[in-house]
């Protein structure tokens, strides 16, 4: 363990990983409880288009990913309210649209193959000081909003119609929650990878839900699970040279299975 921490890049990796480990399930639980798990994947694929646009026009890909993700979050809500199609179908349309745009933009930009691999599968070992600062600042913003509006988000997640009837601005809160998810995805993607970002948002939350706790405890346990998986995944990927994102998600899957088994007993 000490030898890992003798590398600066691994210290940054652990710091960013733990920040993301706290952030991802904090938003993820609200999405899972609302049966909106697919949202994380959709946002990730649209963020990928943002990253590609960033590479193409020479802007920090995290910024373009956040912009693309926020734009798609707004589109999802607008389309959902318009009732043009079922929510899950709209999410699929955006997901494939995002992927198609990403493929086209990446084919137009040259010499980005290495970066593309990092974007798809995560490259926690290449986290720069700037990346770490972005993750921590945006993470604090997202978590602060969640803490301040926790009771409203809870009521809206329990039942949107009922909370609106009670005078809670559900519509605005729903848009805000999806926007927070968009920022979380864009930030987390740098660490976990676009293809697996949804997994860290959804699987620890699902694992914690198997324990039949209160909502608040489920949230805290899912954060603990997620941080544990990030730490274990980083250590293992460091020593055996596997992709950090995939290794972290495999630990999360293992934990989920353990929780399912524990519940059945």
């Amino acid at each position, binding site marked *: 363990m000490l030898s890992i921490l003798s590398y600066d890049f691994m210290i940054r990796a652990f710091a960013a990983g733990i920040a993301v480990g706290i952030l991802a399930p904090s938003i993820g*639980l609200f999405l899972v*409880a609302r049966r909106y798990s697919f949202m994380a994947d959709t946002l990730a694929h649209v963020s990928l288009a943002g990253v590609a646009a960033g590479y193409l026009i020479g802007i920090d890909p995290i910024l373009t990913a956040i912009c693309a993700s926020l734009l798609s979050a707004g589109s999802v809500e607008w389309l959902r309210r318009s009732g043009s199609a079922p929510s899950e179908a709209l999410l699929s349309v955006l997901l494939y649209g995002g992927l198609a745009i990403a493929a086209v933009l990446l084919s137009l930009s040259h010499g980005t193959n290495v970066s593309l691999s990092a974007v798809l599968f995560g490259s926690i070992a290449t986290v720069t000081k700037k990346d770490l600062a972005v993750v921590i600042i945006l993470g604090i913003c997202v978590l602060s909003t969640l803490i*301040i*509006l926790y*009771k*409203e988000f*809870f*009521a809206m*997640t*329990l*039942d949107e*119609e*009922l*909370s*609106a*009837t*009670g*005078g*809670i*601005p559900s519509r605005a809160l729903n848009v805000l929650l999806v926007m927070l998810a968009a920022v979380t995805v864009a930030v987390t993607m740098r660490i976990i990878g676009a293809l697996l970002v949804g997994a860290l948002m959804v699987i620890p939350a699902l694992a*914690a*839900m198997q324990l*039949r*706790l*209160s*909502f*608040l405890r*489920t949230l805290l346990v899912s954060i603990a699970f997620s941080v544990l998986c990030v730490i274990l995944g980083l250590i293992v990927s460091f020593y055996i040279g596997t992709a950090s994102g995939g290794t972290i998600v495999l630990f999360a899957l293992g934990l989920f299975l353990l929780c399912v088994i524990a519940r059945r007993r």
Partner: protein
Amino acid sequence: MPIDDHAIVLRNVTYRYDASPALEDVSCTIPQGAYIGVVGPNGAGKSTLIRLILGLIAPSSGSISVMGTLPQQARKAGRIGYVPQRISQSDFHFPATVEEVVLSGRTALRGLGRFFTREDRQQSIQAMQAAGILKLQHRQIGTLSGGERQRVFIARALAGNPQLLILDEPETGVDAASSREFFALLKTLHAKGITILIVSHDLSVMAKEAKTVLCLNRRLIGHCTPHELGNPDLLARLYGTDVFFLQHSH
């Protein structure tokens, strides 16, 4: 009777979705402390009436007052508790305890971005006591029966200390024993002075439980006693066809 003694006053209320009226020229006065049922066929405007009383939609013409004020103000002040249709029958994998669900009934009252206080927790404990579910407070909502869950959502509605409780088809999908317990609970709440407005498709339940009944089929067909619900002429006007009313014990 001064207007503040009325729970709900509707004056010539019409509501139109596009061109077709869902409710037409409905006028009635419901005193505070009433236990009133609303019956009518599908598409009679029962849900529209609830949405109007809750202030979620505004009448196309006419006026509504709830507890002497505008419906929206009454709702935001927590004077109306609402239990929507089928809420207790939802497929609940939601990871929350009874306590959390009931406490969430005070969210709007506490205000945006403000944390719950000890008073909020005490009010939600009282609401759980009133609904007879205090012993279930630490149970996860998904582990409860439909009848128990129904009580949880009534407790949630009661957590805001409402003067008017509105229930939309609450007996749907609940077994007979739970339904009996549920109506016993409503009687207790009514005895405490809460005005109860319950929408139902079950005439026999309304005849047995409510003190007065609104018969609605876009227009107000009648505002009668439960006994008068057996009148064949009234039923024919209400349902637009001959209806025979067989009372059964729930």
